[in-house]
């Protein structure tokens, strides 16, 4: 038997060598808890993220748009499942995770507490929100926990379509009638700052950042990712004639990036603590869906019990 100190040394050495930590490997309890929190909240975000977009499935402007949106929302459900599975390898059950979401103990990305008022919002979500998510998830493909990394690789493969379909919606509107262009601009105006918030609080105020970097769960800080996102997105807005709603946005040749106005962090903390435009609506929709599925789970469990003899699974 190895002592805790020896086990910790092996763990640290693996991290230093860019090796992955797998479910059966010894890991510090704090690392496990950090991952459970991060992965389950990531999963919740995928699932709650289906709600603002689901809002427009029945009102998509064409059959093509409707098929695309359905496929995208279905992907988000799948992404939630990959991530719940990854979190389960750390010893938490799916039921416990759902319980934490439904009682408000676990968070989800605060971006989904904003409403989708027009069709252009569906474009803005795909382009900006999925764009920001991809930036974060590309980094997480090399996260130190094996099952999380594998889920991220799978998700990144699928996510690229989400961003492209969103940009296509924005492009069509921006190049359409003046009213359509205005609709696209309005969506950009409303989603820009909430999207910048998605990367989390500034590094100076981020409670979990130091651990995440130390354990190679994250490889880039919130502020680094936010800067990268702005640099990448501004030219995409300019290309279709839309204006990023920031009077202080300016290219800075020295840092080879844009200077930009940070989001309102008071708003960020307010929305996280439950006081966003749609927090109550989102959570009650999730709880309702879960409760209404109860009879299905009960029926499946009763069926499994009745047939347990003939099944290898019991």
């Amino acid at each position, binding site marked *: 038997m190895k002592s805790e100190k020896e086990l910790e040394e092996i763990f640290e050495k693996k991290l230093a060598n860019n090796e992955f930590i797998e479910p059966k490997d010894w890991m510090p309890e704090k690392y496990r808890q950090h991952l459970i929190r991060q992965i389950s909240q990531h999963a919740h975000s995928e699932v709650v993220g289906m709600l603002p977009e689901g809002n427009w499935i029945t009102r998509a402007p064409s059959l093509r748009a409707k098929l695309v949106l359905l496929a995208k929302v279905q992907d988000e459900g799948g992404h939630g*499942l990959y991530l719940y599975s990854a979190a*389960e390898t750390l010893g938490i059950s799916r039921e416990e995770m759902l319980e934490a979401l439904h009682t408000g103990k676990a968070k989800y990305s605060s971006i989904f507490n904003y409403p989708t008022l027009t069709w252009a919002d569906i474009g803005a979500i795909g382009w900006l929100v999925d764009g920001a998510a991809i930036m974060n998830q590309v980094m997480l493909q090399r996260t130190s926990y094996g099952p999380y990394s594998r889920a991220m690789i799978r998700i990144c493969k699928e996510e690229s379509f989400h961003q492209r379909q969103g940009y296509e919606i924005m492009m069509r509107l921006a190049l359409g009638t003046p009213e359509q262009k205005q609709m696209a601009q309005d969506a950009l105006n409303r989603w820009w700052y909430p999207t910048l918030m998605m990367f989390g609080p500034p590094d100076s105020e981020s409670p979990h950042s130091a651990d995440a970097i130390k354990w190679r769960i994250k490889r880039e800080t919130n502020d680094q990712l936010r800067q990268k996102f702005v640099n990448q997105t501004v030219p995409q807005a300019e290309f279709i004639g839309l204006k990023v709603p920031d009077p202080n946005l300016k290219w800075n040749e020295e840092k080879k990036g844009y200077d930009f106005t940070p989001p309102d962090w008071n708003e960020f903390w307010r929305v996280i603590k439950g006081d966003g435009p749609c927090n109550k609506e989102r959570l009650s929709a999730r709880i309702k869906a879960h409760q209404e599925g109860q009879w299905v789970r009960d029926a499946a*469990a009763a069926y*499994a019990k009745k047939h347990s003899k003939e099944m290898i699974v019991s």
Partner: protein
Amino acid sequence: MNTNKDNQGTLWEVFLQKKSGQPFIHAGSIHAFDKEMALQNARDTYTRRGEATVVWVVPSHCIVSSTPEDIGSFFDPANDKIYRHPTFYNIPDAIKNM
């Protein structure tokens, strides 16, 4: 044996074969209450873009695994047998097709 504390069914591991002739590769896991549901859930979760032509599902508790702690002793029998590799043998450059 259902080790889940919840009522979400048994945990299954999913393996996909992309094309015939290729190996089955682990894709991830799902929950299901029986074999048929396991196959359907695996299909819906892991093959939305032609990732597979055949799917295997296996109850997770049926998989037997070596443990990371045993890595040394478990694989030791193979570690010192470099003569199992072709590069162990010196063959003159003039010899072709070998």
